């Protein structure tokens, strides 16, 4: 009974669609581009900081001046809406030719067939510049779906005066603290009205999974085509240590839990937090917003069994539907040559993926303002299993984030957290 009714409904919908299609067909074809003239490429960029915006615009302007036959139109998007914008324009068949985004998000679009395979489009030279493990973060089912170009490593930014006052020495750029040392020093830096550290955990899942590689915590384990979530001792290490800092040692602020990285700044500048474990890009806010006389230092990534972290580089991709893939790739080669890549990285206070670019950048900045630490952290970054897992976004939002938030709010135990993460994995990775 019901079935036939639904069929009828579907049929009705179909009739309407056909009817409308016929109605509207006469107006179609309005937005086809002219076939003659220079090739036009649309480049959706996500640069938003003042300096990096300027670098991007300058590079595009320079390219356009040198290549009258390939004109690039610079379109500025924004990180918050880019996913929806891209999905809509992909589905609507109206996507930009060149897309700036991040490795962990383009995988999905690649699987859906919207992004071109760049394996044969980019030069060997560019390929050689970037480490294999970084290429892997943007490689889906053997297809290279984007050129990774900017890396964000997790370092520690510290208030130099508070370190000095507590007698904590700044470690050298190539030899950071272990987790034990970090926790002990956080303890030393804790006193009334002052926390040793602030863990900004508004988006706890990425944070925890990135750092979990310190102890070889992989979370996602593939077993011949099937993936499952496992939470053993290796995976538990990072959440447990952060939890300990907040509730046992009380050396990390519980108030920072709901914050994103930048939200911790007033407390950091106000002397409430002595150290901020966070992205290298936080250095920009230090330069721009720290009060006069405030001294800050960049400490190297914290070390577990290793200093490995999951890399989620920013990427540049080419749409599968683009009519000018070759020209787009040509532009990418130019845009990401070592000098330009160094300039882009500098503008965003991130680490360039290219080896030569990284060297140039250190030379350019003389390693100051934490660039030595940033450059050195590049080698710690690698691909993590969760980035390749199919249902990761769903697992993250539906299960992992709520569970981690409950754990960090001290509402569930570590074992309950583990159970929830594993059960969530079973739900999603069916």
């Amino acid at each position: 009974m019901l079935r036939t009714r639904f069929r009828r409904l579907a049929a009705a919908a179909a009739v309407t669609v056909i009817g409308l299609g016929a109605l509207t067909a006469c107006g179609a074809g309005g937005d086809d581009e002219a076939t003659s003239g220079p090739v036009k490429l649309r480049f959706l960029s996500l640069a938003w900081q003042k300096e990096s915006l300027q670098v991007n615009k300058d590079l595009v302007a320079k390219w356009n001046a040198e290549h009258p036959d390939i004109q690039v139109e610079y379109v500025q998007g924004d990180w918050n809406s880019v996913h929806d914008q891209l999905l809509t324009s992909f589905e609507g068949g109206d996507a930009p030719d060149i897309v700036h985004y991040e490795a962990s998000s383009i995988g999905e679009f690649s699987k859906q067939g919207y992004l071109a395979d760049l394996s044969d489009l980019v030069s060997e030279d560019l390929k050689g510049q970037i480490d294999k493990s970084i290429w892997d973060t943007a490689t889906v089912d053997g297809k290279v779906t984007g050129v990774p170009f900017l890396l964000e490593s997790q370092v520690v930014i510290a208030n130099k005066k508070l370190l000095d006052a507590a007698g904590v020495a700044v470690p050298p750029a190539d030899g950071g603290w272990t987790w034990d040392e970090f926790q002990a020093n956080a303890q030393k830096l804790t006193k009334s009205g002052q926390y040793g550290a602030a863990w900004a955990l508004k988006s706890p899942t990425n944070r925890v999974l990135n750092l979990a590689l310190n102890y070889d915590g992989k979370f996602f384990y593939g077993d011949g085509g099937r993936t499952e979530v496992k939470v053993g001792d290796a995976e538990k290490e990072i959440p447990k240590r952060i939890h300990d800092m907040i509730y046992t040692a009380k050396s990390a602020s519980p108030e920072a839990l709901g914050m994103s990285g930048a939200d911790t700044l007033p407390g950091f500048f106000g002397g409430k937090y002595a150290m901020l474990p966070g992205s290298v890009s936080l250095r920009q806010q230090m330069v721009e917003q720290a009060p006069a006389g405030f001294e800050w230092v960049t400490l190297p990534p914290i070390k577990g069994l290793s200093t490995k972290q999951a890399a989620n580089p920013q990427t540049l991709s080419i749409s599968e539907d683009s009519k000018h893939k070759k020209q787009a790739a040509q532009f990418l080669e130019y845009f990401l040559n070592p000098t330009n890549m160094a300039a882009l990285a500098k503008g965003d206070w991130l680490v360039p993926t290219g080896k030569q670019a990284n060297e140039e950048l250190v030379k350019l900045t003389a390693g100051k303002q934490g660039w030595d630490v940033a450059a050195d952290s590049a080698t710690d970054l690698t691909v993590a299993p969760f980035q390749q897992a199919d249902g990761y976004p769903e697992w993250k939002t539906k299960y992992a984030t709520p569970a981690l938030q409950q754990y960090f709010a001290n509402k569930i135990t570590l074992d309950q957290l583990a159970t929830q993460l594993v059960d969530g994995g079973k739900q999603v990775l069916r």
Partner: protein
Amino acid sequence: MFGKPSRTSRTLQYLALAGYLIFLGFPLVWLLSTAFKPPRELVRLHPTLIPDNPTLQNFVQAFTEQELGRAALNSLQVSLASAVLTVLVAMPASYALARFRSKLGTAALGWVLLSQLFPFVLLIIPIFLVLRQVGLANTHAGLVLIYVVWALPFALWMLQGFVRNIPRELEEAASVDGATRVQVLRRVVFPLLAPGLVATALFSFISAWNEFFFALVLIKTPDLATLPVALARFVGIEGTARLGPLAAGSLLATLPSLIFFAFMQRRLSSGSLAGAVKG
């Protein structure tokens, strides 16, 4: 007026009003304060109301980096067109809906509610496809069309409520006096509907002025971008933002709606009813 309120109740009224205005209007103060603060003053542990070193730098940045002027002009065009069109289309339709009970009318009203109920995100792609088909993607006309359609439910629901409030006898009296239907509409219904029309126009204007998502996906030529899209470019990753330029731009983006409303709000006053009927 019906009876002079006592002094205490007047005082209470002013107090209540002040409470409301603080709750609703404080962001304007915040925007004003933030727009003039240099970056270092934006991350204080104990924020101040008055900037220590007020600066115009935020305005300069906002206008030099993004073409806010052009974006504002685009937004103004789109919003005014949407407001006018919504009123023009909704007025007769709501009159018909309220005065003639027909199956079609009921269906239309029901549909209107339904269209507001269904998850909007699922409608975006089909709408986008339709507009591309008819060649209205990447045009302001396409945006206006969407905004009008999206303001219509509100307009129809509200206005037919207002029409129902107009005594039928007024119209009949006028028509007995020999006025034609159009004259009745123009001289009796329209003036009485004025407050409702103001609310509708305002609604349509402001929703169009502030609409972000369609403006983002439909318009691809940077020169045609509207203000909300331009402003969003000051927002960064994970809730970070370039607060100074954003506040400066937002302050200027807020003003047109407020000015528009300031002009229109007189029409929301008592007196328009009596005046209209007598005139």
